[in-house]
């Protein structure tokens, strides 16, 4: 018998596999049931009724990337908060001050990003 942790995630794995199978089955049913008539007009992408102009794939705004970068930093920060949240009430005031320092340093980062306009969408 595997340990609880492994068993937990075994379930997760099985759920993922079964989920994929159950999501593919209706697609196969459709493939068997639905009519199939390929027409060139049908395979055009929708663009408000006119013939699509150029490619949709184009380079886009650097803004998205900037937000993703800030997001990754804060996501990592939040990850550090989870273990702290679990032990916080078991430990004394020390845990609070430690987290205060941690968060204050990061708030400086947030203030910097704010100040530099990295949180601005223009």
């Amino acid at each position: 018998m595997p340990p609880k942790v492994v068993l937990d995630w075994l379930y997760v794995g099985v759920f993922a596999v079964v989920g994929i199978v159950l999501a593919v089955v209706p697609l196969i049913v459709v493939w068997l049931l639905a009519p199939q008539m390929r027409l060139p007009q049908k395979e055009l992408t929708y663009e408000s009724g006119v013939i699509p102009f150029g490619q949709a794939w184009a380079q886009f705004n650097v803004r998205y990337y900037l937000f993703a970068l800030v997001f990754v930093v804060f996501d990592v920060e939040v990850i550090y908060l989870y273990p702290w949240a679990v032990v916080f009430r078991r430990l004394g005031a020390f845990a609070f001050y430690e987290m205060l320092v941690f968060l204050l340093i990061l708030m400086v980062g947030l203030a910097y990003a704010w100040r530099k306009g990295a949180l601005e969408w223009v």
Partner: protein
Amino acid sequence: MSTFVEILKAIGLAVLVFTFLAVVGAMFGVYMERKISGWIQARLGPKHVGPQGLLQTIADTVKLLQKEHITPRRADALIFNSAPIIVAVAGLLDWVVIPFGQVGNRFLVVRDINIGVVYFAAMASLTVIGILAGGWASNNKYALLGGLRAASQMISYEIPLALGILWAAMIAGSLSTVSLVEAQRGGWFIFKVPPLGLLAALTFLVAATAEVNRVPFDLPEAESELVAGYFAEYTGMRFALFQLGEYAEMFAFAALFSVLFLGGWDEPSLSRQWAWVWLVLGAGSLALVALIQFRLRHVLLVRPIFILAVMAAGLSLILFFGVMAGRAQVLPSIVWFFVKMFTLVFFLMWMRWTYPRLRLDQLLSLSWKVLLPLGLLNLLITAFIITVAR
């Protein structure tokens, strides 16, 4: 050998949860959404298939099964076809850690993973990839814009969401969903350290609404500007899979909200000398029911309120008599789970017709400049209060 049995059990549970999500989440969810939308807009909503249109979504599903699959010629076919599967599976995986209730000493949860809430956040974050992939692979300008908006929105609101989760985890001192509910025996977290509990709950609710792309945060699919956003090119069953994933996610977030702040499957309990509160609530709801039934019958707008009042009256009266009869647990825990979840889902559907859509810059500044500092400060102040109070 026992591992093999566990795998079989897991397969059975997976099929069960998937069916539950398809029937309750997607089919009934869509029906509820259409009916409530109808009432709020003074229409009747679906009405013809089955009693009160109850079978409408089943008919829709049968129709979708017969629809032709069209893959746009210029799309990236492989990614295009796998994106809806990613979204649907991520929606299903969320449900592994959602506890439905308690029977005796057993918890009705697929697996009580030790890091339950982190797991939930992780699985919910996988949806972004499916949406971004689907939007990009369509090679459609609307879809690409929708996918990009969805991705930037969902990653922005993941942080306030996590801060809401952290608040509850800090109070409970645990990350497992079952222990979070257990910790709320004495009082729901929404009422803890008032009003900070309410603030944390609101942060979480706003972020969750944005995570599931619902109004007022429905920019990714904004039908009036982006047609349908990232799934504009999807037909038939693949479209249905996107919908399934989306509704599964919405119900999962509603369930998680009740687990984090509303005591999950716990019954709201009042001791005997406070039982009159239930009676007052029940009588009030009954009066409202009577008022609507006899005075405002023809006003469609009040229908949702009418149904809510009927349910509130029923629940309060059952609780009152249950408490008076001296029962510790009046209704089974699973009923409470569903009551709380559906109330929240109703709330989300109500919001859809109450608030206008935000603009992208407003949306991002709400997340980064309001919710994030607010969440952080809330966490710090609550921690400070707890430290001082010790």
